[in-house]
């Protein structure tokens, strides 16, 4: 009888998390806890960091293989939820929501700001070149480079196609840096601008008519998707969502897309991407390199945006000049990057409100990163 109890207890222990725990699991659980803490205490992108952090904890609870509980095990519930990440259908749904939330008025009223969104995409390709030099394959390098677009759904979409084995690391890296935008960008912005440039006041944006807002998504999808059809899932959903918002006759659909739908998909994508970072797959030297390259691409993207504005200003006169502090917003971390522009601008002039101006390049960055993703796919996929 005693032998039976002993054997049963040992068997139970071998199935429990305690029996299968490794240092890797513990490290990853700590990473998950840090993400949750950053989200709750520091309020850095809590809508993303809390689900991802909890997902990391879920994904790193040690268990015996074959129980159909892990995200990579066929038939497991988490595996079914992860399907949307693997097949890349969560990111376009998130883009639908982003489209339904985004107001492109700032961009429509000052079209030249769109070019900043294009310049900031250089971070993606700088990271691509560096990743190639470090020995990554072109597909892996492309997936790593997209972190510089500062767009989580795009990073997941591209990495699920080009480098599925690296998707966890790339997604976590992209979302981490997006959350750290207020920490990463200001020093670069300060280093690349002069005190006079930071004081530039921009002309207030004009009022944008309803007709312009309705025409914008339709014209944009035609122009961009004809040029880069591979970006269609992202661009199509982004502009469709925006049309729902701006048409004025589909309020219910726009509310669903920008509310419950995007919330549901954010929960699923955050949780499953977090759960995909199992210690065995995640704790590798390549992951460290991905994080380093991700930071590098973010820095280059920010610097490219700021430097492009400075260059652009050489050709602009009077109140047409652009404050280079909105150059950082060319990355597509909406609206955090624009908020950073506002905060930095107000440090030097409390009456200079750059938020609406920065929203122009910020939303242009969303379009730019989706176009860049399409190009990467057409070259590498």
């Amino acid at each position, binding site marked *: 009888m005693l032998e039976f109890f002993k054997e049963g207890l040992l068997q139970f222990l071998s199935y429990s998390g305690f029996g299968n725990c490794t240092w890797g699991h513990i490290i990853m659980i700590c990473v998950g806890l840090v993400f949750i803490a950053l989200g709750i205490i520091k309020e850095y992108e809590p809508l993303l960091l809390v689900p991802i952090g909890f997902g990391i904890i879920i994904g790193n609870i040690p268990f015996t293989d074959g129980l159909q509980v892990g995200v990579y095990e066929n038939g497991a519930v988490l595996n079914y939820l992860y399907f949307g990440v693997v097949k890349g259908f969560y990111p376009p749904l998130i883009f639908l929501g982003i489209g339904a939330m985004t107001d492109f008025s700032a961009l429509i009223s000052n079209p030249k700001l769109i070019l900043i969104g294009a310049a900031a995409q250089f971070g993606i390709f700088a990271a691509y070149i560096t990743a190639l030099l470090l020995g990554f394959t072109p597909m892996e390098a492309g997936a790593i480079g997209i972190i510089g677009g500062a767009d989580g759904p795009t990073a997941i979409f591209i990495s699920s196609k080009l480098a599925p084995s690296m998707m966890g690391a790339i997604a976590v890296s992209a979302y981490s840096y997006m959350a750290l935008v207020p920490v990463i960008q200001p020093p670069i912005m300060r280093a690349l601008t002069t005190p006079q440039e930071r004081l530039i006041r921009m002309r207030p944006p004009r009022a944008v008519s309803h007709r*312009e807002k309705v025409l914008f998504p339709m014209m944009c999808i035609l122009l961009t998707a004809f040029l880069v059809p591979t970006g269609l899932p992202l661009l199509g959903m982004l502009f469709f969502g925006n049309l729902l918002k701006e048409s004025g006759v589909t309020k219910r659909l726009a509310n669903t897309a920008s509310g419950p739908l995007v919330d549901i998909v954010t929960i699923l994508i955050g949780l499953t991407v977090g759960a995909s970072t199992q210690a065995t797959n995640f704790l590798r030297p390549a992951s460290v390199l991905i994080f380093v390259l991700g930071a590098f691409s973010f820095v280059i993207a920010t610097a490219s945006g700021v430097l492009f504005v400075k260059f652009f200003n050489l050709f602009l006169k009077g109140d047409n000049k652009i404050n280079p502090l909105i150059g950082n917003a060319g990355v597509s971390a909406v609206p955090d990057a624009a908020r950073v522009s506002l905060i930095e601008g107000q440090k030097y002039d409390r009456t200079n409100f750059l938020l609406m101006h920065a929203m122009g390049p910020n939303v242009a960055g969303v379009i730019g990163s989706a176009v860049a993703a399409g190009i990467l796919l057409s070259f590498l996929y």
Partner: protein
Amino acid sequence: MKSIYKYIFTVVALFAVTASFGQSVHDLRLNEMMIKNEDNYADEYGRHVPWVEIFNTAYNTVNITGCYLTDDTTGLARAGKKGGEIPARWYRIPTDQKMYMPQRSFLIFFLDNSPLYGPFHTNFTPEKSNTRYIALISSDGKELLDLVEYPVELRDTSRVFGYVADGVRDNKAFKKGIRASGELNFLSDFTPASSNETEVKISKQDKLKRDDPYGIGMAIISMAVVFTALIMIYVMLKIFNYASRRATMKSKAKEEAAKTPAMAAATGTKADDEAVNGETVAAIGTALHLHFGSMHDEESEVITINMPSKHYSPWAQKELTMKRNPRR
């Protein structure tokens, strides 16, 4: 006004250029052919007849309906004219869903003089022809899209002839009626409906690694495409801006016109000196607000009416019998 036309012209030109590059029959090639077919590729009826393979070299779908296949181009100039007769040995490719050739795809046509056998069977056969070429002609009958002259041995031996590298043609030389050396040849392998390049193909990724090891080329092209896409949107937004400015100017002009006494009399509105503008209304409103505000005493408490916060829940609805007590 000129600038709006400039922007509209740019957008239209961009679309026109893109469209002209899309769906072009100029991308078609007679990639591979076999004249003496003894025991090789068979048609859907099991017959071994001469065949030719058309290859779409483009990266988009091309509709080949209406193009002509022939082994006799003598009527080319005549057929292209209005009301010109189509020569007897020209086979017009019929309308069929299969004639939409996807990017980099192949189609086989049987040159068996049996057009009733189906859309892929021509009305001529090169076996007893006086000429030694197969030609592909545009649907308007004016242009030679491709013409492959084959060696006489092809009629006597069961071999295949065609482009050594799939559809790769020196277009300048072709327009002059000559062929670059080594472009066409007997092919070592018999590959109907597939690539003529039978050597081990390197993957897209390896090719990229080989041709652009540092990724600089790709980075330059990609940035150029990103800028092009966003510049196109920029041009579109400039048009929006222009139109919006014009609309504002028009409405302002209307307002100004309404202010002149003559127009005011005509439209029934008050002239400028009598009209009450928005600022005046705002000033009067503010003065009244301040006046009535100052009439109040200092109140220690404010009584307001708040709706009780009672959230709807079907579980609390008696009419839905959710909380009905069980009957004894």
